[in-house]
C-alpha cells in the first residue's frame, strides 16, 4: 500500500541544512499495524508526513497504491490525501465550532457526500466508535478519549485505505488509550486498512504487527530491538 525507497528529507540549504531523513526504505501493507518509534527529533513525524503526502521528500521514491508521489505537483496532493488517507492527531484537531457529527461530516463533504447521506454515515461511524449519544456534543464538552474517537470516526469517514496516527494515545489516560488502539487494530484486522502509528507509548506496543525504530533520520533497528528497548 505504501512503498518508500531511499527517501531523503532535508530542511534548509548549505551549512544550515538539516537532514531529517537519510535514505529511508519502508513498506506498509494492507491489514497491518505498523508502529514508528524513536526519540524526539528522530524523524518519525517527518516520515509520517511524507507517507501522508503532507510533506514532499527531497529525493527518493514514495508510492501510494502504486502511484509515485515524489515530484507530483503540489496542487495534486490534496486529492491523494483525500482518496487514500485518514489522519489522527495527538491533539485531536477537531473543529470546536462543530458538533461531533459535523466534524465527521466535514470529511464527507470534502468527498462530495452531503445532506442526509452524509449525516447518516457520520452517525453510523460515531456509533461504531461508541459515541451514539454524542452526535450533537461539541468537542469542548467531551473527554480526551471521546474526542480521539471522534477523530477516528472522522478519519474513517472517507473510507480511506490508510490510517496515519500521530501519537494517538499521548493525550489520553490508560483506559482511553487502549480503547483507541483497539479500534485502530480492529480497522487493520477486520477492515483491511493499513494503520501507521507514531508512538512513544510503550503500553500500546503489543498492538503492533511490526515496529520500526528510527534514529537520526534512519531506520535504526529491528522490531525485536525496538520491543526490547520499549520493555
Amino acid at each position, binding site marked *: 500500500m505504501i512503498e518508500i525507497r531511499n527517501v531523503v528529507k532535508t530542511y534548509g540549504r548549505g551549512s544550515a541544512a538539516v537532514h531529517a531523513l537519510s535514505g529511508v526504505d519502508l513498506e506498509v501493507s494492507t491489514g497491518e499495524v505498523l508502529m514508528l518509534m524513536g526519540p524526539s527529533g528522530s524523524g518519525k513525524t517527518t516520515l509520517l508526513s511524507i507517507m501522508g503526502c*503532507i510533506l514532499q521528500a527531497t529525493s527518493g521514491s514514495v508510492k501510494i497504491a502504486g502511484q509515485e508521489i515524489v515530484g507530483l505537483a503540489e496542487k495534486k496532493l490534496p486529492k491523494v490525501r*483525500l482518496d487514500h488517507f485518514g*489522519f489522527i492527531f495527538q*491533539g485531536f*484537531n477537531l*473543529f470546536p*465550532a462543530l458538533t461531533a457529527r459535523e466534524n465527521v461530516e*466535514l470529511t464527507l463533504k470534502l468527498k462530495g457526500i452531503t445532506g442526509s447521506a452524509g449525516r447518516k454515515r457520520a452517525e453510523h461511524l460515531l456509533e461504531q466508535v461508541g459515541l451514539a449519544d454524542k452526535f450533537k456534543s461539541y468537542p469542548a464538552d467531551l473527554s480526551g478519549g471521546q474526542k480521539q474517537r471522534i477523530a477516528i470516526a472522522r478519519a474513517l469517514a472517507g473510507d480511506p485505505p490508510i490510517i496515519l496516527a500521530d501519537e494517538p494515545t499521548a493525550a489520553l489516560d490508560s483506559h482511553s488509550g487502549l480503547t483507541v488502539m483497539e479500534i485502530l487494530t480492529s480497522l487493520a484486522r477486520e477492515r483491511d486498512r493499513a494503520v501507521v502509528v507514531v508512538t512513544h507509548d510503550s503500553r500500546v506496543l503489543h498492538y503492533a504487527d511490526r515496529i520500526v525504530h528510527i534514529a537520526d533520520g534512519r531506520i535504526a533497528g529491528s522490531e525485536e530491538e525496538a520491543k526490547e528497548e520499549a520493555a
Partner: protein
Amino acid sequence: MVTLAWKNLIHDKVRLVVTLVGIVFALVLILVQFGLFLSFMDTSANIVERSGASLWISAPELPYVNGASPIQESKRWKAMEVPGVERVDRYILAWVPWKLPSGAIENVQITGFSLESKLGGPWNLTAGSVEDLRGEDTVIVDELYKEKLGVTHLGQTVEISNHRARIVGFTRGIRSFTTAPFVFCSFKNAQNYAGGVVKENQTMFLLVRAAAGVNLEQLKTAMKAKLGDFDVLTNAEMHKRTQIYWVFQTGAGITTLLGAVLGLIVGIVVVAQTIYAATVDHIREFGTLKAMGATNSRIYQVILAQAAMSGIFGYVLAMAIAAPISQSSQNGNAPIALPPEVAAGTLALAIAMCAGASIISIRKATRIDPAMVFRG
C-alpha cells in the same frame, strides 16, 4: 464549507460582535457621509435643475448661479431674435436682507421669475399657488425655513429690504445650499426687493426656452454670436458649474466625500484585522482541513463566506441605523439622502469591503504548512 464558515462565525460571539461593530461603524459612516454628499449635490443647484430653462444668459465669467452680476434687460430683445428661441424671460437671484419679527436680519435669496413662463419658479407647493404671486408684494417661502424666517402662517406680513412682503404660499423641500433660503416672487417684486443690487432696467439672468426640437448646442452658439460678451450656458452646464463651485470649490463636498472614504478605510482595516485574527485563531483548523485533503480554494471559500456573512449582517444592522437617521434628517437643514441605488450599492460595497479585508487572511491560509497539524 459554508456551514463551517457560519459555525466559526457564531462560535466566537465576542469576535463576531467586534467584527460587526467595526463593519456597522464603517458602513454607517459611509452611508451618512455619502448621503450628505448626494444631498449637497442635489441642493447646491436644485434651483437650476428645476428651472425648466434651456439656456442661461448672464454677465461674463459667472462663477455659479448665486454669484451673478446684473445685466441690461434690453438684451432680452436681442436674444429673442435668435432663431429657435420660444421665449426669453428675466430672472433675478440676489441676496437681500429679511427682517425677522425680533428685528434681527437674515439673508435670503430673492428669486424673481416670470409668472407667465414660470421658468426658475418654485415647485412642490403645499399652500397657495404661483398665481398668488401676481398680487402686490407677495412671496412664497419653503416650510423648512418658517422658523428661521419667523413665518407662522399664510398672509403674514414680513419685511424684505425695507419693503413689505406678504406670504402667499409655501413649498416643501426647496433647500438652499447656503444659509440663505430661497424666497420666490414675481420678477417685478424681486426688482423692488433687490433694488440695491438690480436697477429697474436690469436683470441678473435671461432664461431662454428653446422651441421644440431645437439643438441646444447650436442655439447656444447662435446666442453667443448674437450677444457677444455674455455667458451663455445650457441648463446642464449651469447646473454642473454651480454644483462644482459649491460642492468642490468650497470644500464642503470634498469633506463629506473624504468622510465616506475614511469610513471605507476604517471599515477595511477593522474588518481585515478581525478576520485576520479569526483566521490566525483557526489556523490549525485550516491546516487540518488541508491535511484532510481540502484544496486551497476550499479554505478560501470558508474565509470568504465568513467575510461575506459578516458583511451582510453588518449591512443589515447599518441600514437599521442609517435609514431612521436619513428619514429624520429630511426635515432638517442637512438631509441625508439614501436612495435605493445607494442602499443596494452599499450592500455590494460591504461584501466587497469584507472580501477585500480577507485577502491578507487568504494569503496566510494559503501558506499554511499542513505538516503543522503534527506539531503538538
